[in-house]
């Protein structure tokens, strides 16, 4: 019985993760990743970690992947993937070879600690939530607090990084006339640099106004 469940969900995990890396559209990749996460969560339950399985479903599938979907749809990047002009085939082959070698090394590293024998039967202590909580809030209290701090910093950082550029940055990056007035900020230099680099690379896009002011989607909403 356990073997059947393991086989089913191991195959599901492998198949859906293959879809994740092979599908052209990021949206389908994300939805397929939900399947992978679900299968791995079932394996977590088999391994006697039901709480971690629940967390995996709630946090990963419920929160992180929804964030992914939101960004994919916001940026509207679905299905547009341009390959390398040349040498894409070579890159694919070398990547696969490298990953195979890496996996083999990983397997050799992971394997020797284990016999082929089945592990000892699960104990109540192993699967109990109170035991896990005891560990987490007694022995690992400091890492727990640090992770809380990390999440706070991540939220602040994400907000700062993804925020709309301020009016000064916009005019500094865009208008030639105001560039002198807005002077000395890093933004105009960067924008000019970006445009130049684009032209040097054979610029697929025309030199538009950088800084996101002329954007059809997200930034169209509010001129401050």
């Amino acid at each position: 019985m356990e073997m059947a469940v393991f086989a089913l969900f191991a195959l599901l995990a492998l198949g859906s993760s293959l879809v994740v890396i092979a599908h052209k559209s990021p949206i389908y990749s994300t939805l397929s990743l939900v399947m992978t996460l679900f299968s791995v969560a079932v394996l977590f339950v088999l391994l006697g970690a039901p709480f971690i399985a629940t967390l995996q479903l709630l946090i990963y599938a419920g929160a992180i992947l929804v964030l992914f979907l939101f960004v994919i749809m916001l940026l509207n990047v679905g299905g547009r993937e341009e390959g390398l002009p040349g040498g894409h085939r070579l890159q694919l082959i070398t990547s696969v070879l490298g990953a195979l070698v890496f996996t083999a090394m990983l397997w050799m590293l992971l394997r020797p600690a284990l016999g082929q024998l089945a592990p000892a039967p699960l104990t109540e202590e192993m699967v109990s939530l109170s035991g896990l909580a005891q560990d987490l809030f007694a022995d690992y209290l400091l890492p727990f607090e640090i992770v809380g701090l990390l999440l706070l910093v991540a939220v602040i950082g994400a907000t700062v990084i993804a925020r709309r550029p301020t009016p000064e940055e916009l005019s500094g990056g865009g208008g030639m006339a105001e560039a002198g007035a807005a002077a000395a900020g890093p933004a105009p230099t960067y924008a000019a640099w970006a445009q130049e680099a684009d032209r040097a690379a054979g610029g697929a896009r025309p030199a538009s106004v950088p800084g996101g002011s002329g954007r059809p989607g997200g930034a169209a909403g509010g001129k401050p």
Partner: protein
Amino acid sequence: MSTIHLVNESTAVPVSWYLLLAAALFGIGTIGALTRRNGISIFLSIEVMLNAANLALIAYARQLDQRTGQILVFFVLAVAAAEAAVGLALFIAVYRQRRTIDINRINLMRH
């Protein structure tokens, strides 16, 4: 007590099989991260790799009969959430500047 008897010793799956699966998943994620062009697809591949590592940790926790592996996975989940938030914010910022998240076109450092 039903949880304990869920696993019948005679038919139990060897933990090494879970490790093999974890290694395979990690390899798949590596291939994806190396071959995809779309930044978000690369990110998704990295999530697959993270999950493979989590699976290996839980498998070892099972084998060694210790909960430390589960604690580690808990922390990995939290860090993955932080990473996803910051990474996706970076993609939004890059898209605002460059109108693309194709990593072949985000090549300022190359020039």
